[in-house]
C-alpha cells in the first residue's frame, strides 16, 4: 500500500487503470479533462494496456463503450455536464442492453449561462436511465468506489452500468492523500470480467432486436429487480473492501453521529463531507443532530431513510432542483416516508451554480430547522428578489 497525493481526477484515472479495463473511450470536457489526460498518460507509461479510443463526441464515447462492453470486455469512461447530456440516448441504451460500463461523471453546472463550477443537476437529470449512481465526498472514496463499481456492475445479479459522481473542482481538482493498494491486491478483489453473453462471430446471437410489449416489460422489471439486488450487494462489496483494505465509506448511506439524534441532516457529495464539521460543532453546542450522507441515488436508500425518519426529523440539502417541483433528494426522501412515518422533513436548495456551501452555512440551515423557523422548502442564502 502506498499513499498518493493527487486530485480527484488523477486518483480516478489511477483507480480506473488498476481495474484493468480493456477499453476506455472518452471525449475531454472541463472539469473531466485531467481524468482522461491521466489515463492517456498511463498509456504512455505502459501501465494501461487496454485500448484507448479517442472519439469525436460524448455520444460517440458512450456508443464506443457500448460496442466494447457488448463484445464482452471491461469498459470505462468519464464525462461531465453537457458531455453527460449529449450521451443521454446512449445512457438508456447501455442500461437496457445490460452492459456493466463504469463511468465517472464530474458534476458541473449545465449552461447557459456558461459555468464550469459544480452542482448536481447533470446526474439528477439522468436518474431514470437505469444507471446506478454513486456520489463521492473524498478522493479516497472516488478511488475505492471506482474499483468496487466494476465488481458491482459485472455481478450477474446486477449487470447495469454505474455512474460515479463527484463535484467539479471541489474534488476533481483538489489534492488529498489516498491509500493505493498493490495491483495484485486489486486483482485479487476484482477478478477478470466474465460476460454472460457477448458479440461473437463464432457464437452468433441477436442484440437489440424488435421485441413485443410483454417481453419489453419483462426487461424493465428485470432492471428494477437488479437495482434491488444492488441494494444488497453494495453493502456486501463495501464490507469485503473494508475487510481487505480497512476502509469504509458507508453502504447506500453513511451515517455520522446519528445515535440519539432528534434531527438528521441528509446531503450528497462534497456537502456531505463539509456537513461532518457542522455536525461536530452543533453537537458541541448541545444539539442532538446527526448526518446521513446519501451515497447512492440509484438504487435509492428508501429503507435506510425510513429507519432514520422514524427516529428523527429530517433536513435535506439539495445541490440540484427539479424546476417546477423541488430538490430531487427532498422529493425522494419524502416518498420513502409516505404512509409509514409522519416525521417532519425540511428541504433546502443550496450551492447551485457552484456557490460555496460552507460548514457555517450548513450550521445556519440546521439551527433554523431546530429552532422551528424553517419553511417546508426554501432556497438557502438566495441573493435576489425571489420573484
Amino acid at each position, binding site marked *: 500500500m502506498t*499513499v498518493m*497525493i493527487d486530485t480527484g481526477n488523477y486518483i480516478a484515472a489511477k483507480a480506473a487503470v488498476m481495474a484493468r479495463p480493456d477499453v476506455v473511450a472518452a471525449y475531454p470536457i472541463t472539469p473531466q479533462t485531467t481524468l482522461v489526460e491521466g489515463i492517456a498518460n498511463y498509456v504512455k507509461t505502459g501501465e494501461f494496456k487496454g485500448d484507448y479510443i479517442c472519439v469525436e463526441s460524448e455520444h460517440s464515447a458512450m456508443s464506443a463503450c457500448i460496442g466494447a462492453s457488448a463484445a464482452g470486455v471491461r469498459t470505462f469512461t468519464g464525462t461531465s455536464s453537457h458531455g453527460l447530456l449529449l450521451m443521454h440516448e446512449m445512457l438508456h441504451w447501455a442500461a437496457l442492453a445490460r452492459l456493466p460500463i463504469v463511468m465517472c461523471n464530474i458534476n458541473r453546472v449545465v449552461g447557459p449561462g456558461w459555468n*464550469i*463550477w459544480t452542482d448536481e443537476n447533470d446526474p439528477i437529470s439522468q436518474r431514470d436511465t437505469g444507471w446506478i449512481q454513486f456520489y463521492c*465526498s473524498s478522493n479516497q472514496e472516488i478511488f475505492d468506489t471506482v474499483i468496487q463499481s466494476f465488481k458491482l456492475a459485472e455481478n450477474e445479479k446486477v449487470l447495469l452500468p454505474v455512474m460515479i459522481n463527484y*463535484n*467539479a*473542482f*471541489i*474534488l476533481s*481538482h*483538489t*489534492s*488529498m*492523500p489516498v491509500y493505493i493498494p498493490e495491483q495484485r491486491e486489486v486483482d485479487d478483489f476484482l477478478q477478470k470480467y466474465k460476460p454472460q453473453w457477448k458479440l461473437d462471430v463464432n457464437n452468433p446471437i441477436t442484440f437489440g432486436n424488435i421485441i413485443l410489449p410483454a417481453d419489453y416489460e419483462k426487461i424493465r422489471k428485470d432492471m428494477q429487480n437488479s437495482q434491488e439486488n444492488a441494494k444488497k450487494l453494495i453493502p456486501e462489496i463495501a464490507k469485503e473492501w473494508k475487510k481487505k483494505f480497512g476502509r469504509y465509506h458507508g453502504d447506500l448511506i453513511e451515517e455520522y453521529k446519528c445515535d440519539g439524534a432528534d434531527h438528521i441532516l441528509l446531503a450528497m457529495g*462534497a*456537502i456531505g*463531507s*463539509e456537513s*461532518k*464539521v457542522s455536525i461536530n460543532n452543533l453537537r458541541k453546542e448541545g444539539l442532538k443532530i446527526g448526518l446521513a450522507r446519501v451515497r447512492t441515488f440509484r438504487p435509492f436508500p428508501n429503507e435506510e431513510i425510513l429507519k432514520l425518519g422514524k427516529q428523527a426529523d429530517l433536513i435535506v440539502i439539495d445541490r440540484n432542483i427539479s424546476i417546477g417541483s423541488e430538490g430531487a433528494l427532498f422529493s425522494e426522501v419524502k416518498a420513502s416516508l409516505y404512509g409509514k412515518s409522519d416525521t417532519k422533513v425540511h428541504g433546502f436548495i443550496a450551492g447551485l451554480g*457552484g456557490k*460555496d*456551501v*460552507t*460548514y457555517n452555512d450548513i450550521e445556519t440551515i440546521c439551527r433554523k430547522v431546530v429552532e422551528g423557523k424553517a419553511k417546508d422548502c426554501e432556497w438557502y442564502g438566495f441573493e435576489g428578489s425571489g420573484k
Partner: protein
Amino acid sequence: MSSKALVEICFHGRGGQGSVTAANLLVAAALKDGNKGVQAFPLFGAERRGAPVRAFARISDEEIHLRSEVYFPDIVIVLDESIIGIVDVLKGLKKSGKILINTTKEPEDFDFSNKYHVATVDATGVAIKHDILVGGIPVVNTPILGAIPKILDRVTLPSIQAVIKNKWKGEGGEINVKATQDAYDSVEVNF
C-alpha cells in the same frame, strides 16, 4: 500554533508562477512530516497567465472534512509583490496570522507590519541566482517553499526538499533544492 490545530494557507500569485504547484508540494511535504490530513486546491475559475490567482492548502493532524474555500487563513503567501494593492491579500487573515512576501524589502517596509507577523524573502533573486527560469521568467514557487518552514513548524525543510527531488529528478531537482536552502537562510521576520 498547536501541533493539532488545522492550519489554513492562502497563496497569492499570478497565473503561471506556480501557486498551485507550490500548494501541492507543500502539503506533500506536510504529509511526510506526519500531518495526517492535508489538502491543496486552486481557486476554481478561468486561470490566465499573468492574472492574479489564488491557491489554498490545509494541514491538519486529522482527516480533513472541509470542502469549502479558505476564508480565514492562518498564513498568507504572496508570490508576486505587485499584486498587493490590486488584491486585498490581508482579507480574512487571522489576527495571529502571518504573511510571507516575495520581495527585496524588509518586513518593516510594509505598513501592515505593525498589525501582522510579516516575513520577507527575495525568492525572485534566489531563482535568478540559480538560473531557475521558464521562458526567461524566474520561477519563484520552489524558492518560496523553502522559506515556509521558518514561519510554520508543521513542515520541515528536508521534507520540502524531498518532495521537490521526487517531482524533478536529477539536476533540475538539485538546483531547486539549493534554492530552497538559500531562501530558508535569507528569510527576514518582524516577529
